[in-house]
């Protein structure tokens, strides 16, 4: 009786060790024999197995691991969607469900993300080009997660491209046209590189903002956290390499890149290969100036756009107009040069175009007229006189 009980305990122990993957080959053979000996034994084994299986539900991994897995899964969903569509057509715009897969964490009201998928043979090296575009059209913003977990906020009218087969191989390269805020997933072995106009911005794990709209001459890089290195060539084609510290900003006059505006109007119409060629041309013809480094008191002036906040400090109305054009997808016209020089300081949140214009009206002597896709700003002479009086009396 006693020995029977003991062997019973041993048997239980063996089952548990088997379930935990610790039983030796010999023990597994013994266990199999025991299970096949009687229906009772078999039942006992099954009950142990069920207990073991069911207890797995309480397993809780590290939330970071789960988050990482979710990102991987999102990437898989995206890749699979891509293969499915490539089979059917060359180019497809997704605004709907698959795009939603990559817009995580924050839902931005009017955010739209377009993927423009291409699979074409490019230039002389003949290789298939797996370039993925993430595009936030004018009038909307978007957030995307790159395959490595790096999070990118895209401001209105911004295009980000990367090559799926090269991204993450030795380094992580993306090309930016427009404005993006990058929260780079740390990976010291694979530097993260943003190509913006003719600058290369290298980062490890850090947070920074790059503004490189084709219609603006400057490339503006603002560092929030970590370290980045900016490489480029100046006017005399002399290479430079500048390391930025947090709260520093580098402005670089890169010249107008005319082709990029074409890309922005309809990225689908310009083949990737063409884009490359012309970009190369830009590199050669650009009259690049020397970079300027600014130390900033506050960086939120440059990054607030991603949080639905807009902070302005002494911004010219002409500059503000460019931002409004992108954000609301309108064309802003001035009928007075004088008006362009007025400066504005303030913060916007989720105001509509009309609300913003109302606020501007309070700070500058202007009248506005909203047309179909356009806004005309006019100098209001009466209001100007009134304002001047007010300013004089102060």
């Amino acid at each position, binding site marked *: 009786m006693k020995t029977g009980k003991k062997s019973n*305990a041993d048997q*239980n*122990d063996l089952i*548990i*060790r*088997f*379930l*935990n*993957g*610790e*039983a030796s*080959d010999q023990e*597994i053979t013994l*266990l*199999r024999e025991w*299970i096949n000996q009687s229906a009772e034994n*078999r039942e006992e*084994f*099954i*009950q*142990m*197995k*069920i*207990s*073991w*299986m*069911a*207890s*797995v*539900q*309480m*397993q*809780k*991994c590290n939330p970071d691991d*789960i988050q990482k*897995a*979710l990102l*991987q*899964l999102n990437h*898989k*969903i995206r890749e*699979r969607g891509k293969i499915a569509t490539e089979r059917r057509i060359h180019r497809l715009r997704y605004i709907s*469900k698959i795009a*939603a*897969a990559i817009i*995580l964490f924050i839902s931005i009201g009017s955010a739209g993300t377009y993927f423009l998928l291409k699979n074409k043979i490019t230039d002389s090296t003949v290789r298939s080009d797996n370039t993925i575009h993430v595009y936030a059209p004018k009038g909307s913003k978007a957030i995307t997660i790159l395959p490595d977990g790096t999070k990118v906020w895209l401001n209105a009218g911004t295009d980000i491209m990367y090559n799926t087969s090269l991204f993450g191989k030795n380094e992580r390269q993306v090309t930016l046209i427009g404005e993006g805020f990058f929260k780079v997933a740390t990976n010291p072995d694979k530097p993260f590189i943003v190509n913006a106009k003719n600058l290369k911005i290298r980062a490890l794990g850090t947070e920074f903002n790059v503004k490189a709209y084709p219609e603006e001459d400057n490339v503006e890089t603002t560092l929030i956290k970590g370290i980045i290195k900016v490489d480029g060539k100046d006017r005399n084609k002399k290479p430079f390499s500048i390391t930025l510290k947090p709260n520093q900003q580098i402005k670089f006059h890169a010249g107008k890149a005319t082709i990029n505006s074409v890309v922005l109007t309809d990225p689908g119409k310009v083949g990737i290969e063409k884009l490359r060629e012309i970009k190369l041309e830009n590199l050669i013809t650009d009259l690049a100036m020397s970079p300027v480094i600014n130390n900033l008191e506050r960086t939120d002036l440059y990054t607030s756009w991603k949080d639905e906040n807009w902070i302005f400090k002494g911004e010219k109305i002409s500059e503000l107009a460019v931002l409004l054009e992108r954000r609301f997808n309108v064309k802003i016209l001035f009928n007075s040069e004088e008006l362009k020089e007025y400066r504005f300081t303030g913060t916007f949140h989720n105001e509509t175009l009309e609300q913003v214009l109302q606020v501007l009206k309070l700070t500058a002597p202007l009248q506005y007229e909203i047309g179909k896709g356009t806004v005309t700003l006019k100098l209001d002479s009466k209001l100007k006189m009134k304002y001047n009086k007010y300013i004089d009396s102060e």
Partner: protein
Amino acid sequence: MNLRDDDMLKGISRGDRKIYDLVFKSYYSGLCAFANDYLRSLDAAREISQDVFLYLWENRSKLRIKSSLKAYLYRSVHNRCLNYIRDNLTLSHKEIRVDQLKKQADLLFIEIPEDVYDKFFSEQAEQELETAIELLPEQCKIIFRLCRYENLTYPEIAKRLNISPSTVKTQMSRAMKKLREKIKRYL
């Protein structure tokens, strides 16, 4: 947020990403551990668990799931593990120790009643089992958790807690006995 199982199912079938992500976050860990019990490889376990979710998303509109979503997920992972091992038995696969698995596949995949998933893979069963573990004596509880949730072997646990391997053995048997008593009542 606490959602009922069929709300989750409905949410996913209409393409609600928030609900889908939530389901993923609640069940992924358990499913990985479950697959790891079969495959003895965390990488393969993660891959299979993610594939089950991928399948769920891609077929969200046509899936007809009769059981609970949770039971469905566990059953799917179980089936995929089985297929995975079958497919890999003839190959020499680095990830999983195929030879080893071959020797025990029949025992790992021993037939268990169909209704087990519905019975034991539910919020209620999870809570009951959790309470049962919670009520174990302190040392027993710690040992069980190290073994089950941190995938440590007996010698590793003994070393970690500076106790003898035979203590680990006794305490594990004790913990499993309690769980089995709980389970038995439902069978």
